[in-house]
């Protein structure tokens, strides 16, 4: 009996120790089952915390909607929570959150994706080993330190020398882009011409387009140079800082996506005579597009959920900028409103003023849940596609 138990025990994967009595083995098996149950219980408990979060945020958000309804919250921009006739219009906060997130994405995505391309396809391994820690450190710096920088260093700089800074930045980006655009356009325009006329036509096109681009650039830079920024704590400031904060996420997720695209696709493209840029843009990027989309979504999540930077440096003015894309005006976001207003609402737990902040948190929570789920879905689908 014992011998047979031992032999089966050896062949089984989770075998209890050899040569035990029947009772000892049963005890061991019970202990194993119990232990397993305990592990499952702890795991479930800790992971189901997220459900708790949903329940408890919703539980405190519902009283607001029950008292005040949905309409004002989503459609009004009048935010006077402490007035005698309180008004809780949160539209300006939604727009503010959206605006700074849009700005952050405009900063983070071009930079992040081109950095990711460079890391995965251009730079040698040794350089990559140096750049990786830089990205990690950018991700690790606490948000309050970013906020402090935005408020104490960047905001005064923008206020005093905002025009020249923007002008230099626009020039630095604009000149190479315009140069390339002119060359490509001249090429495309003269492609069809017969050989003899082409060279002259090309020179002409280059001259005309180049002059035009120069004029446009000079005008743009000059108007930027004269720009006066009334306050350094505005949506532009926050957008840039949030963009830098979202960079590490965008870079690492899109680099993973680019690396997941196999060598064979790249080599096939090279074999057809494509340059590296053409391979990347026409073959690798489309193949990795879903992963990069996931990276963008994760970057959006990071920017929407960020509190300290926007609280410190966005100006906290509950208004929709006029026109809506004017990022030189101060804005106010959902996160900053929750953080800033809870201090005053705290004493009167139970009032609409307290619960409206939970309503905002619920909106944030649902948004991040949506983003998370969709990015996971996209990544899973992409993996299946690449794998299959």
């Amino acid at each position, binding site marked *: 009996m014992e011998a047979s138990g031992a032999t089966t025990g050896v062949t089984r994967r989770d075998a209890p120790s050899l040569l035990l009595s029947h009772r000892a083995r049963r005890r061991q098996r019970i202990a194993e089952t119990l232990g397993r149950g305990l592990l499952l219980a702890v795991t479930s408990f800790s992971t*189901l915390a997220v459900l708790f979060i949903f329940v408890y945020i919703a*539980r405190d958000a519902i009283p607001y909607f029950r008292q005040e309804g949905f309409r004002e919250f989503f459609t009004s921009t009048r935010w006077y929570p402490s007035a005698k006739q309180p008004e809780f219009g949160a539209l300006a906060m939604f727009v503010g959150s959206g605006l700074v997130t849009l700005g952050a994405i405009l900063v983070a995505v071009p930079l992040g994706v081109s950095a990711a391309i460079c890391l995965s396809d251009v730079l040698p391994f040794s350089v990559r080993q140096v750049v990786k820690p830089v990205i990690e450190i950018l991700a690790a*710096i606490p948000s309050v330190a970013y906020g402090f920088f935005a408020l104490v260093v960047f905001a005064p700089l923008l206020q005093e020398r905002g025009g020249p800074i923007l002008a230099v930045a626009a020039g630095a980006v604009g000149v190479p882009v315009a140069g390339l655009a002119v060359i490509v356009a001249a090429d495309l325009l003269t492609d069809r011409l017969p050989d003899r006329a082409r060279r002259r036509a090309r020179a002409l096109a280059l001259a005309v387009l180049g002059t035009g681009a120069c004029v446009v650039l000079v005008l743009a830079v000059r108007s930027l140079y004269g720009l006066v920024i009334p306050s350094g704590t505005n949506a532009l400031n926050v957008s840039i800082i949030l963009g830098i904060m979202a960079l590490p996420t965008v870079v690492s997720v899109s680099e993973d996506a680019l690396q997941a695209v196999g060598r064979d696709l790249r080599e096939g493209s090279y074999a057809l005579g494509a340059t590296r840029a053409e391979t990347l843009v026409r073959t690798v990027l489309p193949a990795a597009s879903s992963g990069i989309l996931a990276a963008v979504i994760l970057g959006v999540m990071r920017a929407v959920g960020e509190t*300290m930077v926007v609280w410190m440096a966005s100006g906290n003015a509950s208004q929709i900028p006029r026109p809506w894309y004017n990022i030189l005006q101060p804005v106010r976001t959902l996160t900053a409103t929750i953080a800033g207003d809870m201090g005053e609402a705290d004493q009167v737990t139970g009032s609409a003023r307290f619960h409206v902040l939970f309503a905002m948190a619920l909106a944030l929570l649902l948004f991040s*849940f949506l983003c998370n789920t969709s990015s996971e879905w996209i990544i899973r689908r992409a993996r299946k596609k690449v794998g299959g």
Partner: protein
Amino acid sequence: MRLQTRKVLDRAFAGSGIMAIALMVLALVILLAPMFVRGAGAIFFTGTVEHRRIMLEKFERGDRAAVEAEDRAARTAREPVYRDLAAFEKSLAEGDAATRRKYGKPLHDLKKAIHTLLGPAPDEVRPMLMRDQYGQARWDRAQVKLAQVLYREDWDYSDPTRAGIKRLKPRAADFVGTPIEGLFSYVERNLDKMLLPRRTVYWQFLTDDSYDSHFFGGIWPELLGTFYLTVGALLFAVPMGLIAAIYLTEYAPDNRWTRLLRTCISTLAGVPSIVFGLFGLAFFINTIHVSESKSVLAGSMTLALMVLPTVIRAAEEAIRAVPATFKEAALSLGAGRWHAVRSVILPAALPGILTGIVISMGRAAGETAPIIFTAAVSVGKPLALWQTLTQATPALSWNIFNLATEHEAVDEIRHVQYGMVLVLVSLVLILNLAAIVLRARIARRMRA
């Protein structure tokens, strides 16, 4: 397109990527440089005799005889200032009402400026606030205050279409022909004799209590609070995260429940930090009452929840990275599954798990939003260990925000703010560098 154009485009493409990376590195440098340079100014600066007096009187540091001698020397140098002022006041009291009215306000402002620079006059009653009991403790601040003694702000509203323009006017011009006419040049020339600036290394900045809402002293309560919160968060997060990781990698069957658990973990990772704060308030404090109101305990639990996904993921990855042969060898020697996990897999995965823990630690230390409603107060004494169960604490991250935005004299205590930022950032950087080094060692071992 011509081949040449294609080549140009190719090069520009690679160049744009390199530019992006260069910009990223540049952003990091621009971000960290002011923090390190000005943050160091909280510890290394030129201190005046007032600083040394504070050290002696509040912390009993330094050589009493030497400081008192310095104080006497400084007082001797200041004497002419107060003598001139007294003489002028006396002549005003004896003079006619019109003169008194003419010089009343300028004189009052001047005396206030001098008070801020040098501290209370010898015959003055000891003021209530500590910031009024001493002159400027730092030489860089003393320079600013000196300018305020020498010049007064004057606003020019002559152009009604624009905002007023600030002009600085020398105060000396207000007092031409009075006994204190020479006072200004005397103060300007002899400020170093009145304040006796000297290179100072104030490393106790890290371990001193703060006085008079951070005007003087150090950041010990904040540092200790951050330490408590971080360690507390890990005490909750590490055991739970580790168990979850072991279960998910070694035991979990591939069924719907496991998939739900995984979705929950990734959702938890995406919850905005401020929502964690609200949840901590609504659940830990208002529902299960772990403490009456804000406490380190409630804050730690909230932070633990926030870093839990990081811990789980890192531990899972580390456990998965252990070669399957290790486990198979253990099992073939007759070890049970739990035995194999405990004696073979966990030790082998330990460096990887530690990396994850260290990174989570950095995150917990730096996060602000979750502790705003659950643990942080602006001003407080350092807590004893048992007080953490019931009391709120100052913390570096929260106080950086608080001092930079809500403090009554933001500009006066920039050095403290920068000092706090420096301490927090270096803390996080050290933790992350440790993680990077750990990871490099693991990689080397794996390759070997």
